């Protein structure tokens, strides 16, 4: 038996196995402030650990990527309704628990400032600096009548479908859903 040959074969197998890349792929499904903060902390932490990071914003999560300063026209009735009901950007998100008509959210934001925990604004800035990639689910945007023109300016922001995310996720050592 040729052990050396078997070793080479095994090594090739291990190298080509799925999920072997030093990469984090995360689905950001939730539009809750707390979960959005958690996703950004994990993402920036992973990038600091030398991992490539892909964030796939879908469903309620997409509202966090809206830019409150941008206005778009030409939405249909349902699109306008969703646009009105959904938070306009990451600074309008609410806590998933103890929101208490906004009091809880304001308290957490105040506490974060006091304890010097990075805000979502700062985390997005750091994410861009670290080269974290953001994908937005095209179907979610279409469903809720959102347009790419109303989204934040973020380097390399990409509108795509589930296959683009899965292609990344398949190679990633870590996959998360938040």
């Amino acid at each position, binding site marked *: 038996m040729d052990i050396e040959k078997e070793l080479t074969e095994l090594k090739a197998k291990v190298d080509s196995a799925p999920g072997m890349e030093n990469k984090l792929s995360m689905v950001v499904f939730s539009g809750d402030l707390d979960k959005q903060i958690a996703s950004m902390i994990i993402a920036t932490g992973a990038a*600091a650990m030398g991992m490539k990071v892909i964030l796939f914003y879908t469903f309620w999560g997409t509202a966090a990527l809206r830019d409150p300063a941008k206005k778009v026209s030409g939405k249909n009735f349902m699109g306008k309704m969703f646009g009105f009901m959904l938070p306009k950007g990451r600074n309008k998100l609410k806590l998933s628990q103890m929101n208490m008509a906004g009091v809880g959210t304001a308290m957490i934001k105040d506490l974060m400032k006091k304890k*010097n925990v990075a805000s979502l604004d700062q985390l997005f800035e750091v994410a861009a600096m670290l080269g974290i990639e953001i994908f937005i689910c095209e179907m979610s945007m279409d469903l809720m009548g959102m347009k790419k023109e109303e989204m934040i300016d973020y380097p390399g922001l990409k509108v795509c479908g589930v296959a683009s995310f899965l292609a990344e996720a398949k190679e990633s050592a870590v996959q998360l859903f938040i």
Partner: protein
Amino acid sequence: MSEFTVAKTLDCKGLACPMPIVKLSMEITKMKVGDVVEMLSTDPGSLADVPSWAKSTGNAVLETKQEPGLIRFYVKRQK
């Protein structure tokens, strides 16, 4: 004891997770291989996080000094 020279001091005092390791990772790429950075942190979480970060990124924590309300890390860029 300390047989290394500090090339740079990185102040992460007051910063909370994940900023100390984010700053450290940004700083280390600017340094030369073999250089040592002194990182100052007040975040108790960094006691566990800095060694984990170093292990994962292939850098070395040469020394950790704990003072009241301050932690000093000496991290060497390995590659």
